[in-house]
């Protein structure tokens, strides 16, 4: 049953159920995106760029003849990797930023600069191959790429990370001098055993009950409707870049550095973005640089935009996790060993983060903190698959698939309820034991899904057509809280109060969908409550512009809403001070004897003497009041809260179809910043969660290594007809730092679902399928295997 959430502390706008601030603009098709701006009708002299892509999984251009392409109709420029300027670009890790804005020498994964802007060498089928074309129309550019006469040197390829580690495997990225396809450790995430506490092997040997399980998370796609792209115009000495990246200032640093331009000669403008799903953490995409070069050579604006097929570009890293748990008979877990093998694909990008970052710090230090013996280890390996970029829930989703498989198995072996095993063993080191957040979420979830009726695996009622039902759950720590956002540094914002008491809020961030803009406006209205401010009287500046705006908050980590909100009070206080200052001569009183409330300034010692703020500002010089903030938000270490997902599935043993019937998504938000927004995340996150559980996987042709389903017919994204009944349950149990003390929930709402579904399928039919998606084929095969055994 759907119930409205009641906040711990009632505020006027923050934490309430409200429409999005830009809901109307979006519902009318008036919100502007890159494709609505980068049009020939708006830029009549615009050229279209295309890049040559590798047709093979592993190859190099031996020779390319561009003559024919250059003579094609409409072609204005062709640049190859042999061009001295193109060849001179510095290499990059293509993972320049995480949450912070950094220069080249502080980019993420600096030891993995395995990408060349123009390189003849390709590591996956679809890789950019170092030849670009600009033509009058997109069609002409496409035809010109087809007309390139390329002689390819084709190498053996490898898709399986186990095979890739063998001594005779084809060596990928030999220029990196890694000596093998195993990606060597680097300083940030540490050695191959990156977390080691106590003595795991001894504890496992002594444990009376043990489990040893393995899961495999496949390559999946972000599935953003708005494909990556840019429009770059480089005239004279100035470059303007219109793009749908989610990081304006970082991109400005990137372009300025790689193109050797001073920062005031680079302007980045970013409108609304048609979803990001984490992908833009691989933000220094090569196309910015080749589009820039094409623009400078032609003197014309150059548009580059991925086609749907090309937009399958950076994937969720496929990771195989093995978990070994040891426990006492009372259910106390005494040892945990996790061994990961990450398939990096053709470049490292953020694969090492997916494997090691969360599992190196937050997971063992918070979620697993009470366990005395923990060892986490593994490797990342190059293969000729899509490079592992960054995708919503990076690393956590793959880890959770194995973690809660192990817990479910262990509980079954012990004859205990997995919910109780989870409550008994896990929680952050700062909290009470049992962890109040985990306990509250799991008990509420169990109640809502009807957990007390859960039957032993495969032993439930048989429904029509032999169908069986099952329940499953999974839980995970939430994503970042304020203290994990420290690398971002200062947050900047500015509130301009017009003389009519309306406001313009410059809280720069690319709005990709989560509703950070709405949160910022609600927090601004709450902070300006002394003016009876309402959200409809605030305009949020809806484009990031690195020339006219403040520094943008990189739209990642689900952190932006509260990072801006935390500073709103400071800007509001400045506005209040300015009102008092302006009121002094009018009300003939000292500022210390004045106050503002109910949109009136009044004399405290003589409250009958007052003036409305509007009248005050209107009778002066009409100069707006400006309040701003520019500081590091609170960074106290307060631990993290949790999220849980309970599901009910129905499995048809005749067809192998898994139908998810109900999902209960619970999040301890700390503070709910925007109730409707939270529920939109909790419900909407299931499009990825459910997709990765049942439908989504990038499929490769094993013989050629070529991906087969780079389209939305064969790569199946859930639609409305696939969606079950979803119950979003926002909660406030834990409380973090600052005025609001919330955590990010945008990532974790996708994390638990594949495991919860797989556990529910096991509960329904008694077979484990631990390599999602749980397709009918896999279910039927597993049932057949079980039947053969019995």
């Amino acid at each position, binding site marked *: 049953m759907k119930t409205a959430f009641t906040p711990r502390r009632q505020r006027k706008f923050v934490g309430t159920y409200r429409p999005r601030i830009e809901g109307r603009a979006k519902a009318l098709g008036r919100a502007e995106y890159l494709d609505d701006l980068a049009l020939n009708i708006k830029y009549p002299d615009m050229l279209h760029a295309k890049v040559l892509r590798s047709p093979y999984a592993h190859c190099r251009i031996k020779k390319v003849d561009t003559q024919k392409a250059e003579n094609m109709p409409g072609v204005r420029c062709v640049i190859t990797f042999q061009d001295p300027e193109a060849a001179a670009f510095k290499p990059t890790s293509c993972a320049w930023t995480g949450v912070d804005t950094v220069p080249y020498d502080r980019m993420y994964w600096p030891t993995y600069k395995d990408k060349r802007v123009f390189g003849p060498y390709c590591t996956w089928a679809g890789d950019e191959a170092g030849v670009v074309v600009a033509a009058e129309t997109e069609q002409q550019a496409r035809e010109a790429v087809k007309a390139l006469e390329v002689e390819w040197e084709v190498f053996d390829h490898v898709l399986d990370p186990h095979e890739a580690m063998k001594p005779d495997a084809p060596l990928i990225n030999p220029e990196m001098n890694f000596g093998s396809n195993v990606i060597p450790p680097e300083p940030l995430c540490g050695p191959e055993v990156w977390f080691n506490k106590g003595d795991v092997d001894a504890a496992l040997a002594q444990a009376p009950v043990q489990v040893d399980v393995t899961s495999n998370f496949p390559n999946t796609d972000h599935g953003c409707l708005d494909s990556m792209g840019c429009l770059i115009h480089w005239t004279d000495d100035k470059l303007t870049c219109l793009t749908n990246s989610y990081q304006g200032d970082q991109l400005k640093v990137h372009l300025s550095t790689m193109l050797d331009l001073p920062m005031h000669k680079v302007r980045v403008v970013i409108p609304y973005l048609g979803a990001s799903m984490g992908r833009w953490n691989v933000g220094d995409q090569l196309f910015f640089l080749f589009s820039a070069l094409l623009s400078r050579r032609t003197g014309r604006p150059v548009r580059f935009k991925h086609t749907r097929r090309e937009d399958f570009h950076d994937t969720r890293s496929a990771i195989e996790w093995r978990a070994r748990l040891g426990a006492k008979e009372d259910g106390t877990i005494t040892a945990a060993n996790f061994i990961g093998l990450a398939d990096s694909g053709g470049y490292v990008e953020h694969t090492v983060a997916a494997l090691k970052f969360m599992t190196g710090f937050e997971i063992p230090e918070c979620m697993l903190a009470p366990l005395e013996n923990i060892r986490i280890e593994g490797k990342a390996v190059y293969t000729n698959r899509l490079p592992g970029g960054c995708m919503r829930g990076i690393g956590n989703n793959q880890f959770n698939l194995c973690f809660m498989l192990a817990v479910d198995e262990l509980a079954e072996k012990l004859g205990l309820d997995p919910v109780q095993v989870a409550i008994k063993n896990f929680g952050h080191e700062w909290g009470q034991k049992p962890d109040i957040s985990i306990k509250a979420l799991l008990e509420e979830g169990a109640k809502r899904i009807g957990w007390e009726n859960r039957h032993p695996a495969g032993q439930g009622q048989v429904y029509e057509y032999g169908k069986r039902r099952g329940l499953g759950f999974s839980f995970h720590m939430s994503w970042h809280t304020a203290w994990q956002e420290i690398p971002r540094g200062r947050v900047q914002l500015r509130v301009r109060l017009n003389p009519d008491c309306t406001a313009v809020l410059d809280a720069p961030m690319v709005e990709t969908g989560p509703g950070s803009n709405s949160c910022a406006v609600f927090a601004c209205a709450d902070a300006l409550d002394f003016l009876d401010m309402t959200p409809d009287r605030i305009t949020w500046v809806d484009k990031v512009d690195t020339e006219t705006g403040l520094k943008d908050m990189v739209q990642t980590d689900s952190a932006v809403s509260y990072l801006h909100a935390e500073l709103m009070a400071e800007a509001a206080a400045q506005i209040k001070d300015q009102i008092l200052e302006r009121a002094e001569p009018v009300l003939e009183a000292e500022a210390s004897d004045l106050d503002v409330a109910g949109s009136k300034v009044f004399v405290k010692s003589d409250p009958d003497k007052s003036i409305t703020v509007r009248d005050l500002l209107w009778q002066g010089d009409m100069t707006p009041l400006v309040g701003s903030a520019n500081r590091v938000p609170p960074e106290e270490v307060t631990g993290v809260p949790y999220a849980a997902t309970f599901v009910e599935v129905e499995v048809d043993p005749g067809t192998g179809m898994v139908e998810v019937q109900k999902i209960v998504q619970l999040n301890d938000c700390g503070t709910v910043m925007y109730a409707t927004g939270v529920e939109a995340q909790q*419900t909407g996150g299931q499009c990825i969660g459910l997709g990765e559980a049942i439908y989504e996987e990038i499929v490769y042709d094993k013989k050629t290594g070529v991906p087969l389903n780079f389209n939305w017919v064969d790569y199946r994204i859930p*639609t*409305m007809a696939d969606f079950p009944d979803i119950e979003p349950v926002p909660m406030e149990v834990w409380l973090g730092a600052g005025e609001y003390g919330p955590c990010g929930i945008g990532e974790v709402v996708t994390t638990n679902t594949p495991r919860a579904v797989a556990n529910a399928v096991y509960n329904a039919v008694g077979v484990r399928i631990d390599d999602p998606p749980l397709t009918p084929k896999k279910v039927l095969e597993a049932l057949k295997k079980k039947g053969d055994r019995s």
Partner: protein
Amino acid sequence: MSAPQTSEKALSLRVNGRDHVLTGLDPAETLAEVLKNRLGLTGLKVSCDEGACGACTVIMDSRAVLSCMTLAVEAQGREILTIEGLDPEDPVVQAFAHQHEPGYGTAMQCGYCTPGFVMTAKAFLMENPKPTLAQIREALSGNVCRCGCYPAIAQAVLRASGQKAEEMKP
């Protein structure tokens, strides 16, 4: 299908009640390209460009069509309605914009699919003014919302049809 030979001829389109005569068209140009790039009607979004996502949906002679899968020449003489042609107070628009009842979230997040959903819903409600939830789910299942706002979208469509929003059952 043989390529229509219209490049020399003018194409007459009636869009949002206004007549347009376009010349110099490539016969392969889609309706989406013409509406967006020649007429500047940017509300529709081209996302998959192969008929799999519904983001480019417009209404042609009272029927929802995928403008990325419709050649411009096929629209000759037809009545086209794009999102720009909707009354700003249209109940479908209002319902999508205001959806915020507890338990469902908002009817959009990134908003890229929204114009397509609004137009699909509009055409559907013209055909079936009082649909059931099951009929809504069926009718709107050709549109992809990666942000996953399906339950709220279904509620918005119910609301736009003047019916009391109800629990979403599978």
